[in-house]
């Protein structure tokens, strides 16, 4: 009884060894587990099978062109365009720093409170452009004829709606920027008068909210960053800093 089982076991072991040696060789050449290759081949097979139906329907040319143009249009056209727009806006707006970021909120050299304006432009502009990206055939009236034939409606109102929504977004953004400026100047005043200097320091609260004179002496954002890291226990995923040794240890 035991001898056949033993020989079976040996055979299985040697088969295993052969398979694993083969899979090691495949892995060395291919760069991943053989399962990786199988999964990818299965996906390509499924996609190829679907594409065959497009070929049979004599539509593969337009299909392929649109597929590739979709990728190029996003990665090499849309993305560079919106990145460039964002970068230009950041450079043109006040508060640009040489390190490539906007200045942090806090009193500038003049003593006036500073709130970077960039996000108050990014958000309404970004959303307006997103609306345009989605609805441009209606907004620009490009599909006016087919749309009118299908629905009996005209595309004219969409442009006005888009302009109105864009205007409202920018107006709301301007109001919230004004409020942020007011908050910042109130904070700066409090900081100068030192009314809150003795308030208990809760390590979880934001530096701006504690009323500490944060804005006054933490002008350099790196300094503030290091300080906040200490006070807020936000340690996960941060670049490792060498810990300063504690005195007396």
């Amino acid at each position, binding site marked *: 009884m035991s001898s056949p089982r033993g020989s079976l076991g040996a055979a299985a072991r040697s088969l295993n060894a052969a398979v694993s040696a083969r899979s090691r060789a495949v892995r060395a050449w*291919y*760069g*991943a587990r053989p399962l*990786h*290759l199988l999964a*990818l081949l299965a*996906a*390509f097979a*499924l*996609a190829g*099978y*679907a594409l*065959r*139906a497009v070929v*049979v*329907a004599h*539509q593969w*040319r337009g*299909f392929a*062109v*649109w*597929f590739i143009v*979709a990728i190029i249009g*996003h*990665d090499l056209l849309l*993305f560079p365009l919106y990145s460039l727009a964002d970068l230009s806006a950041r450079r043109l707006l006040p508060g640009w720093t040489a390190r*490539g*970021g906007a200045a*942090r*909120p806090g009193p500038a050299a003049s003593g006036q409170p500073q709130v970077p304006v960039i996000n108050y432009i*990014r958000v309404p502009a970004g*959303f307006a452009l*997103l609306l345009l990206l*989605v609805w441009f*055939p209606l907004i620009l009236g490009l*599909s006016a004829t*087919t749309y009118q034939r*299908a*629905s009996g409606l005209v595309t004219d109102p969409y442009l006005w*709606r*888009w302009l109105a*929504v864009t205007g409202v977004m920018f107006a709301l953004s301007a109001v919230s920027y004004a409020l942020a400026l007011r908050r910042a100047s109130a904070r700066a005043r409090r900081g100068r008068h030192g009314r809150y200097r003795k308030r208990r*320091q809760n*390590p979880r609260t*934001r*530096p*701006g909210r504690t009323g500490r004179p944060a804005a006054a002496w933490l002008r350099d954002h*790196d300094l*503030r960053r*290091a*300080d906040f*890291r*200490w*006070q807020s226990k936000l340690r*996960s*995923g*941060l*670049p*490792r800093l060498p810990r*300063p040794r504690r005195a007396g240890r």
Partner: protein
Amino acid sequence: MIGCLNMARGTAAQIAAGAVRGAQRAAAWSAHRADAAVRRAAVAARGAAVRQPPGPFQPGFWRSPLRGRWLTSLLGLVLLVGLPVIAITGLLSYAAYNPRLHGNDETPGAPLLKFFLFSWPTHPAWVYRVDQGVHVTLGLALLPVVLAKLWSVLPKLFSWPPVRSPAQALERLSLIMIVGGVLFEFATGILNIQDFYVFPFSFYTAHLYGAWVFIAGLVVQVALKFPKMMAGLRSRSLRRELRTPLAATQPEAPDPERLRTADPAPPTVSRRGMLVAVGGASLTLAALAIGQSIGGWTRRTALFAPRGLSAAAPGALPVNRTAAAARIVAADTGPAYRLVVTGRRTVSLTRHQLMALPQHTVVLPLACVEGWSYSAAWTGVPLTELTRLVGITQPATALVESLEQAGSFRSATLSAGQVSDPRSMLALCLNGVDLPPDHGYPARTIIPAAPGVHNTKWVNNITFTAAQ
């Protein structure tokens, strides 16, 4: 207890030595930055053998401090939940056309991909309305997430050397399926709902098979990347990120996939700010469109939707093909109009004779594949009444044809279930008045839960077949 005491002591000490330590930390941070610069220089020296081309191929080109595996994983998770919902509602919509019945399949071919087809039910009547409303509105809502996800991984397009191993080459090739697929599907879908037919192919064919290419890419991407996504999600806490303001926003930790840039700039927006902006854009896009699917007074809230506020005039209901577009002329629908019903025998009926047949009124939704829908009270002759008229007791199918001479949906084949549903009818009136010309005067079919185009307008021929 001792731990607590220690902790308390530690906190007191920290507060006491706060200012000194702040300065120390700042020094440490500068040292760290200097170290990083040295390390980068060393890496650059080592990499001199494989010189990157200039521009985006240089690791220093990408500066955003928000990019990293946590952000990519989070956006990936949102898409992993949302995109399959869009795919499944889309495939269900295909099934709703009953493509196995004669003449109904707009996208012949690839029989293996039609394994899931089933006879589309008529209950509940709102099922197609909800399916397509979700498909289109969720599609609009996920567009900002798709764009953000692509933004977060875009530097990887320019990774150098472009190919390191056959495995990596194949994996990059497979990205064409998922990236091209998602962009292709969103582009064709969004253009189609606005009747902007600039594509040189049939929307149905391209959108369906493009979806399968995308599904292939999605499945393999999930199979290969799911563990990495989960690890990425665990690398930071969402709750903590949502409490972190700009002043405390730090770059993510470097990761083996190099999603985090080598040289992050100081942030101009917090991770929280970015997530709120993307989520807000999603919700707003959906909120400005969903009224066209819900109908009623909410249609007025749909500022940006093809059948939203524009189609909300009092008493008006949206359509997808006007009588003018279908070239229906008054002569066809006037006194000369006859409806020919064929079964075991053939009868020809004027509109007056149709009005004299038993009628019923049912409130049923009408939903378009483009996502908009409305509910209305339809009055007309039950299809079961017409089958009785032509001597068929157990109908198998019905071929419904329109006066319209051309057009992809001038006819539709209905299933046995659709014909024998007691609510299915040849409608003559809409909300108590004669059908308006654009809604199919003199008569149209109304089938519960069927796609809008299968509710044929301007019907002049119905051919029933009997079950054997």
